[in-house]
C-alpha cells in the first residue's frame, strides 16, 4: 500500500460540489500517477473546470478529499497548494498591461522575491527566463506589454509561467483553445518534453486530436459524474461517452393518456 501511495501524485475521493440547487460534481473519484498525462474530458458544463478549481484550491468542495503526494489539501490556501508543486493555468489567461512579457516570466519564480531580499542583493538576469522565452516562441515579443499578446501567445506564456515554478503536477485548463494549429503541435512537443523531466499533468481539453497525441489516459465527466476512465483510443468504443457527446437516440416517452 505504501508503495502505491508513493506512485500516486494526485488522488480525489468522493468529491462533491453544488452551486445552490445545481449539483456540479457528485462523488468524483480519480487518480493521477507520477509521470502520467491525464486528459479530463466532458461536454460543456460537465464540471471539469470546477474540479480543476477545487484541486488547485481556488474553490472549496462540499465533500470529499484530495490528496497530493499523500497529503490532504483540504483547507489549504491556493498559494500554499501552488508552493507544494501543484500549479494550474486558466482557461482565459489575463496578462498584465504594464509589465513586459519578460518581466512577467521573471516574476514567475518566487526565488528572491521577499521584501528583505530586495535590500540584500541586486536582481540578476535569469537564464531560465530566456530559455523559456525561446522554447515557447516568445523571444520576439519579450519586450512588449504582456496584455498585448494574442490569445494563443497568452496561453503559451501562462504555461511557461506555470513551468517556471517547477511544478510536479501541472493542471492545464484548455491549453489549445484559440491557439494556432502550428503552435498546437509545438505545445504537444513542449509538454511532452517537460513530462519526460518528471512533470505529471492533468489536462482539461476539447480537442480530441491533441488529447490522443498527448495523454496516456482520459477521465470523462458528464453532469458531474465520471463516466469513463480509459486510454484515449478506447473512448470511441465507450457507449456512455458517445452518448454524452452525441446524445442518445431519442425515444418519445410514453405519456399516460
Amino acid at each position, binding site marked *: 500500500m505504501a508503495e502505491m501511495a508513493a506512485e500516486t501524485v494526485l488522488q480525489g475521493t468522493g468529491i462533491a460540489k453544488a452551486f445552490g440547487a445545481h449539483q456540479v460534481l457528485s462523488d468524483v473519484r480519480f487518480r493521477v500517477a507520477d509521470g502520467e498525462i491525464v486528459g479530463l474530458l466532458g461536454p460543456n458544463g460537465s464540471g471539469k473546470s470546477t474540479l480543476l478549481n477545487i484541486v*488547485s484550491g481556488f474553490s472549496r468542495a462540499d465533500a470529499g478529499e484530495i490528496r497530493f503526494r499523500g497529503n490532504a489539501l483540504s483547507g489549504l490556501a491556493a498559494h500554499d497548494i501552488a508552493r507544494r508543486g501543484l500549479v494550474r493555468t486558466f482557461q482565459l489567461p489575463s496578462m498584465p498591461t504594464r*509589465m513586459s512579457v519578460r518581466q512577467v516570466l521573471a516574476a514567475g519564480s518566487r526565488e528572491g522575491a521577499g521584501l528583505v531580499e530586495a535590500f540584500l542583493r541586486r536582481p540578476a538576469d535569469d537564464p531560465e527566463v530566456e530559455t523559456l522565452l525561446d522554447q515557447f516562441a516568445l523571444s520576439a515579443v519579450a519586450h512588449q506589454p504582456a496584455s498585448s499578446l494574442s490569445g494563443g501567445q497568452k496561453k503559451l506564456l501562462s504555461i511557461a509561467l506555470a513551468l517556471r515554478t517547477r511544478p510536479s503536477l501541472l493542471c492545464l485548463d484548455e491549453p489549445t483553445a484559440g491557439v494556432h494549429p502550428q503552435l498546437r503541435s509545438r505545445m504537444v512537443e513542449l509538454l511532452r518534453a517537460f513530462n519526460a523531466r518528471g512533470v505529471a499533468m492533468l489536462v482539461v481539453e476539447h480537442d480530441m486530436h491533441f488529447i490522443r497525441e498527448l495523454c496516456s489516459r482520459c477521465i470523462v465527466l458528464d453532469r458531474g459524474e465520471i463516466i469513463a476512465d480509459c486510454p484515449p483510443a478506447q473512448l470511441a468504443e465507450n457507449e456512455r461517452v458517445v452518448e454524452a457527446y452525441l446524445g442518445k437516440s431519442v425515444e418519445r416517452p410514453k405519456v399516460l393518456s
Partner: protein
Amino acid sequence: MFEFLLHVAIMACLYGMLALSLNLQVGFAGLINFGQIILFGAGTYGAALAFANGFGPVAGLALGVAFSTAIAVAFAQLGRNLGADYWGIATLAVAEVLRILITNEVDLTGGAQGIAGIPLIFGDWPRPVGPLMTLGLCLVILLAAWWFCRRLTESRFGLALKLIREEPMLALSLGYDLNAARTATLVVAGAMAALSGFVFAHYVTFVGPDQLVAAETFLIWAMVIIGGSGNHLGAIVGAILMQFLFAFVPFVKDAFGAPAEYVAAMRLTLVGGGLLVFLMWRTQGLIPERIGDARPAPATGRPAAARMVEKHNG
C-alpha cells in the same frame, strides 16, 4: 519671503514622503488606500504623546512607527475579504473613526485642542539657520526614502507586487501569498508616512486632529495622480508642484483683491480640478510609469485605481 519659501520647501519634502508612501501602495501594489492621512497621524501623535508623557524624540519615533504598523496590519486584515474598491472605502472609514476617537479622547490626546509645545528641531539655532538645517534634514530623509522605494520596486519583490497589482489570481496560482505581500507593503509605506508625521510634529510643534481630515488624504492622492502613479520621481514632483501652487494662491488672491476665504476654496479647487483633469486627459500623470525595458507606458495606460474599478465592474 525667504523664510516663507523655506517653509514651503520643508512642507514639500514632508508631503513628498507621504506621496512616495501612497505611491508605493497605489502605484505599485494596487492598494487603493483612502486612509493615508491616519498613517501620517500615527507619526504626529507618536511624537506628541511621547513628549506629553516625558519621553524623548527617539521614543516618539518608535511609538509613531508602532502606531503606523498596527494601523497597517489592521488595514491589511480588512482587505482579506474585500474587493479593492470596497477596501478603499473601509480604509477611509477606519481613518475617520480614529480621527474622531482622537478628538474625543481628551484626557489622552488633548482632544480638538491637540498637543502643543513639542520641541522644535534645531530650535537652539538662530532663525534662518535652524529652518535651513531642518530643510537639509528633510531633503536627506526624502532622498533616502526615494532610494529605498527605488531599491524596493526594482527588486524581485517589486516585480511580484506589480504582478499582484495587475493579475492577483495569476499571482495566486504561482504561489504568491497576496495578503503577506500587501501587509508588508502597507507596513513599510506606513512607517514612511509615520516618519513624515514625526518630523512634521517636531517642525510645527503642534499636533491636532484637524491635521488628519480626509481632505488631506485626497491632497496626497492628487500629488500621486498628477505626478504619475507608479513612478517615484512623479510622486515627488507632484508633491513639490502642489505645495508651491498652494503657496502661490494667496498672492493670486491679493492680485485680484479677492477676500481671504477664497484661499481655501482655490486650494480645494486645485486638488479636485487637478485630479479630474489628469484622470480624464492624462491618466499616466506628468511622469509615467516605466514598463518593461525602460519604455514609457502607452497612452492608454490607466492608473491602478481606475483599472481596479473597471475590473470590478466587469
